[in-house]
C-alpha cells in the first residue's frame, strides 16, 4: 500500500555537479539520488526510507542527447525518455532504444523519467535498460576522485544493485556508433500498455551480407537483472539467420532463463513465451 504523504527527509539541491559530488562524498550511502523521481518517490510512498534525497534538477548541462557518427550517442543524467522518443537520430541509429522509449509507460511518466534513472533502478523489468544492454555501451560514473566508465555488461550486480559506489553520480550513458550492417529491436509483453513488462527482449545484430557477425541479445523479467543470452547469441553468430535456425532458440533459451511467479505472470507462462518473443525481436532487428 502506498501512503498519501512522503516520509521525512532532508532535501539536497546542489547547484552544480561539483557541489553534488561533495555532498555525496560526505553523506554517501545516506543519500537517495533523484532524477525524474518516478521510481524514488513511488518507493518512498511505499516503504523506502532515506535520510537525504538529492535532486539533480538544479544541476545544469545534464540533459544532453548528442549524436555523432564517429563517437556514437551520449545521453545525459537528466535526459528524459521523451527526449529519446522525439529524437530522429535515436530512431535512425538506435532503433531498439527508440522502440523502448515509445513503448515506455505513459506520456506524463516519459516527460519526467530519465534513461539513466532506468539503468540505476536496476530492475529486471526496465525497458530502456533492456535495449541498452543489447546495444552495448558504458555508464560514466563520477565522484570527487574523478571519472570511470563501467561497461553495461558489468553494471548490474543483482536486483536493485549496480556497480555505482555511494559517492558516485552517473553522469552519462555512452552508446557506440552502429556499424554498416547493424540492426536492433526491442519488444515487450504487457497486460495493458501502461503496465511494466511481463517480459521484454532486445536484440542487436551486425550482419554482413546474409551472415550474422555479432549478436547481442537481452531479456528482462527472467532473472534478478536484465541479462544477456550468450548461448542463443552463439547459435546465431557465423550463420545466415532463417526461420529454422530461429526455431532452435526456443529450447536453448530455456537453460538461460530463471523466471519467477509474480503478480504480472507465472514462471510457466514466461517460459512458454520467451522463445516466441525472442524470435520476433530478432526478426524485427533483421528488418531494421
Amino acid at each position: 500500500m502506498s501512503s498519501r504523504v512522503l516520509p521525512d527527509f532532508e532535501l539536497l539541491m546542489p547547484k552544480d555537479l561539483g557541489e553534488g559530488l561533495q555532498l555525496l562524498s560526505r553523506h554517501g550511502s545516506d543519500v537517495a539520488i533523484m532524477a525524474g523521481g518516478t521510481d524514488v518517490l513511488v518507493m518512498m510512498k511505499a516503504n523506502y526510507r532515506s535520510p537525504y534525497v538529492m535532486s539533480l534538477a538544479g544541476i545544469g548541462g545534464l540533459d544532453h542527447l548528442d549524436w555523432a557518427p564517429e563517437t556514437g550517442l551520449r545521453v545525459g543524467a537528466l535526459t528524459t525518455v521523451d527526449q529519446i522518443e522525439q529524437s530522429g537520430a535515436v530512431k535512425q541509429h538506435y532503433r531498439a532504444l527508440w522502440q523502448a522509449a515509445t513503448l515506455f509507460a505513459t506520456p506524463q511518466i516519459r516527460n519526467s523519467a530519465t534513461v539513466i534513472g532506468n539503468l540505476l533502478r536496476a530492475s529486471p523489468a526496465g525497458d530502456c535498460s533492456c535495449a541498452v544492454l543489447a546495444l552495448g555501451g558504458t555508464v560514466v560514473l563520477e565522484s570527487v576522485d574523478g571519472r570511470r566508465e563501467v561497461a553495461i555488461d558489468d553494471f548490474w550486480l543483482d536486483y536493485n544493485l549496480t556497480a555505482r559506489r555511494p559517492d558516485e553520480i552517473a553522469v552519462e550513458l555512452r552508446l557506440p556508433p552502429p556499424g554498416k550492417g547493424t540492426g536492433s529491436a526491442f519488444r515487450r509483453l504487457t497486460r495493458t500498455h501502461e503496465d511494466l513488462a511481463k517480459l521484454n527482449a532486445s536484440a542487436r545484430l551486425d550482419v554482413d551480407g546474409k551472415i550474422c557477425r555479432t549478436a547481442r541479445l537481452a531479456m528482462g523479467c527472467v532473472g534478478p537483472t536484465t541479462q544477456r543470452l550468450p548461448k542463443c547469441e552463439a547459435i546465431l553468430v557465423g550463420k545466415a539467420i532463417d526461420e529454422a535456425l530461429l526455431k532452435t532458440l526456443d529450447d536453448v533459451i530455456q537453460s538461460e532463463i530463471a523466471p519467477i511467479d509474480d503478480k504480472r505472470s507465472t514462471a510457466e507462462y514466461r517460459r512458454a513465451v520467451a522463445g516466441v518473443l525472442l524470435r520476433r525481436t530478432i526478426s524485427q532487428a533483421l528488418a531494421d
Partner: protein
Amino acid sequence: MKKCEITLTVNGEQLTTMVAANQTLLEVLRENLGMTETKYGCGTGECGACTVLLDGTKPILSCLTLAAAMDGRHITTAAGLARDGQLHPVQQAFVDESGIQCGFCTPGMVMKTVGILARTPNPSDEEIRHGLEGNICRCTGYAKIVSSVKRAAELMADQSAAE
C-alpha cells in the same frame, strides 16, 4: 522538518509559499495555495488525475513531483485555461461532446488534451488513444473523451484560422 520558500508561476500568477522538503507539487497546489482543481487519484503515477502542464505544454504528474524542485517553474492547472470568462476550446469540447461524467478525471484529461494538441494539432484516433494513455476514466469508456479531443482539435484550428 526544514521548510524552504519557493516561487511558482501558476496560471500566469507568481506565488510564493513555504514548502516542506517532502511536499509534492500536488499537495502544495491543493493545500498551500487552495487550488483544488487538480485531483489526487492514486498517488503513484498510474491514473493521471493530478496532471498539470510544465512550461505551458508538457504534461507531468504533480503527485510524483517534489514542489521544492519546481522553484521558479511555470505550472498550468485546469483553472488556468479559461480566458476572460471564455472556456478554453479544450474545455468547451469536453462540454459539447459530453466527455464528462463524474468529472473526477476531467481536469487531468483536459490538461493532457492540451499537451496532445500542442504536439499533434490534428491527431488521428490512434494518436489520441496513445496520447491519452496514463489518464484513467472509470465512467465514460473513453469513446466520448476521444471525440472530445477530436472536437477540441477542430475548435482550436477554427480559432487559429480566425486569428
